[in-house]
């Protein structure tokens, strides 16, 4: 087990001749604490797989260094890093039994057969595979095979970290939660550093204690699920986490207080002064409500989503989404809305300014 540290790591893939390199990974300084459960969350192309490959040693970064427990491993190949990996698609030997598949990483390292048996049986119990141990892997369904892949990742006791790259892609939607819950339980039992790459916010926020959100080659925020929801550092985090995403509305500042189309907006997190550049208000649909006096809007659409309604409102040409309770009435005449000042944030060139929402 190890604490993994990134120091000023950057990576560019070789550019076509005559062109400037484009950094797939901009500068990353990041510590992965020993025994932590992390998720790397971002859309495709954000650099999360590049980052994962740098941890595992499949890729040597163009710049910067990687330390495991303070020791430099930047140029060390994968085999010497003691990292276990679970990929998107099952990696199993079809002709072997489930038992032999699980035993493979241990036998490969010359571990004594009685120790192998104890460990395989332990992992099989955790993953509910005990009854299948004598079966050939070939006969299993896709999710059965992926469970074996997970088991192979978890079976070694000497690893520094376990990396998961979109491990639930092939799992039927109705079975996903069971494996998610299994993984979380396993992390609590074995306490190895786990890093889980996904573009799915539910998987990331459920699995991880801390989520690393990536966008366009950079880490834009590292935080607990609550922090990412209540105080997105960057408009991208507000957009990407939560459904519908955060409303981002143009504003001006008057002595640090936001003004939206000439209307003052109340916030607990004013800016310290007036700023140039792009200024926006960020407020989640959950924190917008109907009010007696506020911003006048036109209602464009009301979607009944069963447990709540999503109202699309317009002020001038700006769209504001709001989440309204299932029994709540949408005012028919002169609707006006207000934002919860605690969760109304100001963004300057996409980065949050002012204080922190609690």
């Amino acid at each position, binding site marked *: 087990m190890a604490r993994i540290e990134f120091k000023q790591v950057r990576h560019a893939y070789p550019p076509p001749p005559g062109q400037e390199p484009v950094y797939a990974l901009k500068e990353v300084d990041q510590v992965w604490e020993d025994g932590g459960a992390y998720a790397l969350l971002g859309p495709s192309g954000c650099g999360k797989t590049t980052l994962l490959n740098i941890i595992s040693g499949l890729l040597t970064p163009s710049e910067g260094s990687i330390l495991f427990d303070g020791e430099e491993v930047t140029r060390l190949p994968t085999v010497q890093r003691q990292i276990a990996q679970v990929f998107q698609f099952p990696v199993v030997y079809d002709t072997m039994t489930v038992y032999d598949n699980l035993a493979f990483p241990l036998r490969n390292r010359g571990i004594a057969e009685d120790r192998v048996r104890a460990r395989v049986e332990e992992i099989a119990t955790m993953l509910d595979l005990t009854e299948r141990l004598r079966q050939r892997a070939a006969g299993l369904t896709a999710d059965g095979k992926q469970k074996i892949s997970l088991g192979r990742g978890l079976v070694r006791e000497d690893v520094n970290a376990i990396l998961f790259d979109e491990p639930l892609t092939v799992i039927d939607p109705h079975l996903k939660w069971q494996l998610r819950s299994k993984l979380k339980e396993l992390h609590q039992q074995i306490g190895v550093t786990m890093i889980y790459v996904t573009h799915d916010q539910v998987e990331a926020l459920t699995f991880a204690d801390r989520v690393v959100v990536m966008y366009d080659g950079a880490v834009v925020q590292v935080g607990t699920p609550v922090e990412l929801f209540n105080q997105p550092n960057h408009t991208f985090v507000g957009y990407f986490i939560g459904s519908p*995403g955060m409303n981002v509305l143009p504003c001006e500042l008057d002595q640090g207080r936001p003004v939206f189309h000439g209307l003052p907006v109340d916030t607990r997190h004013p800016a310290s002064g007036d700023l140039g550049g792009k200024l926006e208000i960020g407020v989640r649909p959950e924190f917008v409500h109907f009010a007696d006096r506020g911003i006048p809007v036109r209602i464009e659409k009301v*979607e009944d989503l069963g447990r709540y309604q999503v109202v699309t409102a317009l002020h001038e040409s700006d769209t504001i989404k709001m989440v309204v309770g299932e029994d709540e009435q949408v005012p028919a005449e002169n609707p006006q809305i207000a934002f919860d000042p605690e969760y109304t944030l100001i963004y300057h060139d996409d980065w949050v300014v002012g204080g922190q929402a609690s």
Partner: protein
Amino acid sequence: MAIELRGVSLRVGAQTHIHETTLALEPGQFNILLGTTLSGKTTLMRLMAGLEKPSAGEIWTGDENVTGMPVQKRSVAMVYQAFINYPSFSVYDNIASPLRVAGLPKPEIDRQVRRFAELLQLTPMLNRLPSELSGGQQQRTALARALVKGAELVLLDEPLANLDYKLREELRDELPKLFADTGATVVYATSEPLEALMLGGHTATLKEGRVVQFGPTSKIYRHPDTLESAEVFSDPPVNTASIAKRGNRAFLGEAISWELPDGVRDLPDGEYRIALRPHHLQPAGNGVEVEGEIQIAEISGSESIVRVNVAGNNWVSEAHGIHSYEYGQRAQFHFDPARCFYFDTAEKLIAT
């Protein structure tokens, strides 16, 4: 044009893939087929398209019986879950292909291709190959090809399933607008209840090759005829349990009991089934209190989905905000008994 299935069924060998189905789908709105994998959504669509011939029954479009008419002769467009485009054609040629097959004059083809490319935000990509596009752009190309045909029947088979969820969110918003003025009958298959609610229109709940219930989407959601329909239209799964009715009270196990609401109170004593939507089981609040052991708390950003074992039943609570629990911890939840659906032992709805 409306499409109607009249007593349609499909048997393959000894197996029944589609049980006798009568269904009338109207143009001008989304008609959603909602069910899990293997519930028969795709097969129903193939029957509607004429890709599959029914073993019994008739299929009508408008006032024409089209049973047995091959797909080439029908005015049908289909979009699949996998992004299907001609890999060696540019986006332009992909969209143009149905018009070329129909033998339209060149200037007309050009006009149509550009119109739909604009609508689907593909104009900057017209000269690219599908392999040079993102997943969302590839699926938009397939959608543009379906739209440009001007087909009377458009079948969309889980078209957003392979896209990442933010893109899905955007396309779900756009799709009903795209088809609004075409006059086509749109049939949309999905396995996600939330998607059905977002798209609105009418919904048919499907299970094991049978239409369980059909009607306006929010009505089906709020008034499921049967427990089965409630189960199909719920993700996370609807909470179910057997209760014993004794006088005015319901008993769930021995420890949990509540006063029955009107409409159920007057029923004879005995065994009943209840269903409670996950968002009506809340960590805090009034009403009946239940205690259970936490299996997992899942967090989707704005919501927490907590799996908890209540009196031997695996239940789910879905609550706004972020609620964290430890695995195995015991915790209390609350529900309003008036929010329950009550079913008889045949699982037919008695009261909500």
